[in-house]
């Protein structure tokens, strides 16, 4: 048998025969959806990536932040 097919069947049959695992997978999928599709997008942007186009701009911003916060 094709090794890829073998691997596929291994996982397919494994998931199929799960009992408690099915509800766990449901929890994992819901959790990942909340984390990446809701929290990451709407609540947790990477500020420096979002607000600046280049690393040089990011450096300048952080230096400005670091050197004015002490004054």
């Amino acid at each position, binding site marked *: 048998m094709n090794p890829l097919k073998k691997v596929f069947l*291994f*996982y397919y*049959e*494994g*998931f199929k*025969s799960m009992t*408690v*695992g099915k*509800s*766990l*997978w449901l*929890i*994992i999928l819901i*959790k*990942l959806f*909340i*984390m990446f599709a809701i*929290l*990451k997008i709407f*609540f*947790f*942007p*990477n*500020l*420096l*990536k979002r607000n600046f186009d280049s*690393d040089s701009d*990011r*450096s*300048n911003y*952080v*230096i400005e*932040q*670091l*050197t*004015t*916060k*002490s*004054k």
Partner: protein
Amino acid sequence: MEHFDLSLVNWSRAQFALTAMYHWVFVPLTLGLAFIIAFMETLYYKTKNEEWKRITKFWMTLFGVNFAIGVATGIILEFEFGTNWSNYSWFVGDIFGAPLAIEGIMAFFMESTFIAVMFFGWNKVSKKFHLISTWLVAIGANLSALWILVANAWMQHPAGMYFNPETARNEMNNFWDVLFSPVAINKFLHTVSSGYVLSAIFVIGVSAWFILKGRHLLLAKRSIIIASVFGLVTSLFLVLTGDGSAYQVAQKQPMKLAAMEGLYEGSEGAPLVVVGALTPGKEYNDSRNPFVFRVQIPRLLSFLGYRSGEAFVPGVKNLVEGGYIYTNKEGKEQLALSLEQKMERGKIAIQALADYKAASDAKDTTAMAYHKNLLDSNFEYFGYGYLNNPKSIIPNIPLTFYSFHIMVGLGFLFILFFAVLLYLALRKEFKIKKWLLRISILMIPLAYIASQAGWIVAEVGRQPWVIQDILPSVAAVSRIDSGAVQVTFFLFLIIFTTLLIAELKIMFKQIKLGPKEGGK
């Protein structure tokens, strides 16, 4: 000082603490239970006794529940770095990038691949390959923890890097100094071994419940023996690594040590407080007795912190006022600076960074070299430039002190517990009194309390620093609306509490169901 939104700093810290503590509910059981399962499966492989297979599969199910609910909860911490702590994220540069990338690859390839074989592979792969996969899951989970803990240890003791004023980033110049920093080694060993102890207690507690209910007695007895041996060995190891960690704290984070011990006035031959109650509202510079009562062992703190019973251990007041002799990073004796002097040098370093930037923009290479030199020679005090009064350098002493003593006290209680259980379990007739079985169940929450207390000591005790001496939390935080952080704080509280309830519900259900395929 330009206005700091302290409510933003505090909410950002609270949110990070909340997510980290919830994440740590799941992690230690994964770290230790994986090894306990691997030992059990090894016994199955060696003896070919089907009961060991049943036992292995039962604990594997509980491992799976914990792993599934806990998986990816740590990713939220990385989200927070990018949003709430963007200055810090930029400032740490590739120091965090490299270990976290290795962690990601290891976690993905080792855990994800072999965990599938572990759960789906019974009767599909050879017994030997299955056993190897189980061991690789255990090793992989612990190696994942290594990289995270290396990153955390770097924050407690920055090493193997230099600060590039052009980019405002710390750049790694020696990977091995980061990986093998004594703080990293001790932190890794102490943290994972605390997970082993917690897991051993979990196995014993669940097994004790089975015995009390008169169910699955063979599984319960065998599990208690395995977990007691594992727990006793790892809890003794935990003492060793705890000593190593405290020694490193004494050398690198003396203020944390002073907070752990409620030590306001330093002395030669300092005693170790075994138990005590702190005087409420005590200030570092008032003359009140720091303790309402205490039981202490003479000279032990000096010995544990500096390997000499006569050594001077600085207290909070000494660390603020300076003027005592200490051994610096190069191993030379030196007069400690006062906080005021450190703040002065920190401000010079910060101004040098600003001047370097201006010189760089003006392409004035002579001025750049001058300011870089000034920055380099004062960089070790960079973070002090953000502080403005002595209190800002003192962590929450009651929280650190009580957490430390709870952790240590419970740690020694666990050693006694494992030793007693093992003694009783290995007698000719396996007989454990009902009261001890009930205590065994009670030990499970105590193990979680000790584990969380350890992190409180590590993280609260090092405040105000996000990176020791270099970056305080006030400078690390992003300028965002504190209201947004409050919203996500409560959002996380709801999500994580729901996950915890889900875990407990599924876990209790699986424990009640017990092992499949019979069991005696």
